[in-house]
């Protein structure tokens, strides 16, 4: 278990040459890679389509062969996202605020963003800061352990602050996404 990086690479190297199947998979991957690199200059459309077909076919093959595993993976993934939205760990909440701070700085100095977008950004970020500061103040005042999520979220005010915060961030992300998508469409099709 405590292998060095070289050790791990050695194990993988031995695995590749340990059976015909592993060698075959390695050669197929290598061949695909060489074809893609070779096609970079030639830019053959057929090669691009076939390569996409192969990679997509591989993924679809996994979906078909391991349907139960894929379903449970998707369920776990969606549940984790929901947990992050509704009951984020305080570490996640902290990193959300770091992200918001970075976006705030970008908005302050950006010359590309329109006035309307800047107003929206500043409004959302100000509210998020207020919520986060209230969250910290309440937690400290009531003596909650920031690591213990369960007892923290038993407090309705703290839970509401966190969940409304996340909802606002989600709506802002959606709005920003569609806004930039519209700008992209505008640039590509209207000019």
């Amino acid at each position, binding site marked *: *278990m405590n292998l060095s990086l070289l050790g791990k690479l050695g194990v993988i190297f031995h695995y590749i040459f340990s059976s015909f199947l592993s060698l075959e998979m390695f050669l197929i991957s290598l061949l695909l890679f060489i074809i893609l690199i070779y096609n970079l200059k030639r830019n053959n459309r057929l090669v691009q389509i076939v390569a996409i077909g192969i990679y997509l076919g591989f993924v679809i093959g996994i979906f078909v062969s391991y349907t139960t595993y894929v379903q*449970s993976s998707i*369920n*776990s993934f*969606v*549940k984790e996202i*929901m*947990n992050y939205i*509704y*009951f984020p760990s305080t570490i996640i909440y902290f990193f959300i605020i770091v992200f918001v701070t970075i976006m705030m700085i970008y908005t302050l100095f950006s010359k590309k963003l329109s006035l309307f977008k800047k107003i929206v950004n500043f409004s959302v970020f100000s509210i998020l800061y207020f919520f986060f500061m209230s969250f910290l103040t309440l937690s400290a005042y009531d003596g909650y352990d920031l690591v213990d999520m*369960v007892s923290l*979220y*038993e407090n309705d005010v703290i839970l509401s602050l966190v969940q409304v915060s996340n909802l606002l961030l989600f709506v802002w992300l959606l709005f920003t996404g*569609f806004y930039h*998508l*519209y700008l992209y*469409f*505008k640039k*590509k*099709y*209207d000019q």
Partner: protein
Amino acid sequence: MQMQNQLKKSKRMKKSQALLIGSLLVFGGSIVLSWNYLLRMREEVFSEMKLAMTDSLPVTQEQQTEGGPVSGGEPEYYENYTIDYSKYYGVLEIPRIGLKRGFYNVGSRYNNIESNVTMVEGSVSPSEGNGNLILMAHSGDSYISFFAYLYRLGVGDDCYITLSGVTYHYQIVDIYDVNKSGLMVLDWNPNNRNLTLVTCTKDSDTLQTVYVAEYIG
């Protein structure tokens, strides 16, 4: 003529606007189609959190001290207490050492050895028929050392697993130590329901003790 063309252009929806509306419709449609699924996931997340919030830990004030029991001292027995079986996936009970502890299903975020008796992935519940239900927990002297007293068990001791109101009675048939190597070979009877309890061996940093119990009725 130019003015008329410009007027026509401004009245007709721009391609970018049409594409934006299309994107919004696709997104909205995806949400509508997956609404029931998302709602089900949301309910699971909320019910798990509610379970964790209303979980009445089976320790009295004397048993749970800050940071765990005094170093070097043995942890207290868990006294017999009333447990709400509906809050857990299953409940493990070992009368010989006064242990009665609920555990969560494999997919639950509270199925975690740092907070509960943990059900190992790949376990087969007794309600599913023959197979092996494997539970792990810490030994030692912290407040999460639910298997601290397992070392007092011997062959012939009784264990009970309660799932969905049905109680399965097991008896310990084998106890052995294995090295902590990350890989463990378990010895169990495939023609019966089995219960395997795993924990660190008392006073050892390198061994784990495996308690194998078989279903007797």
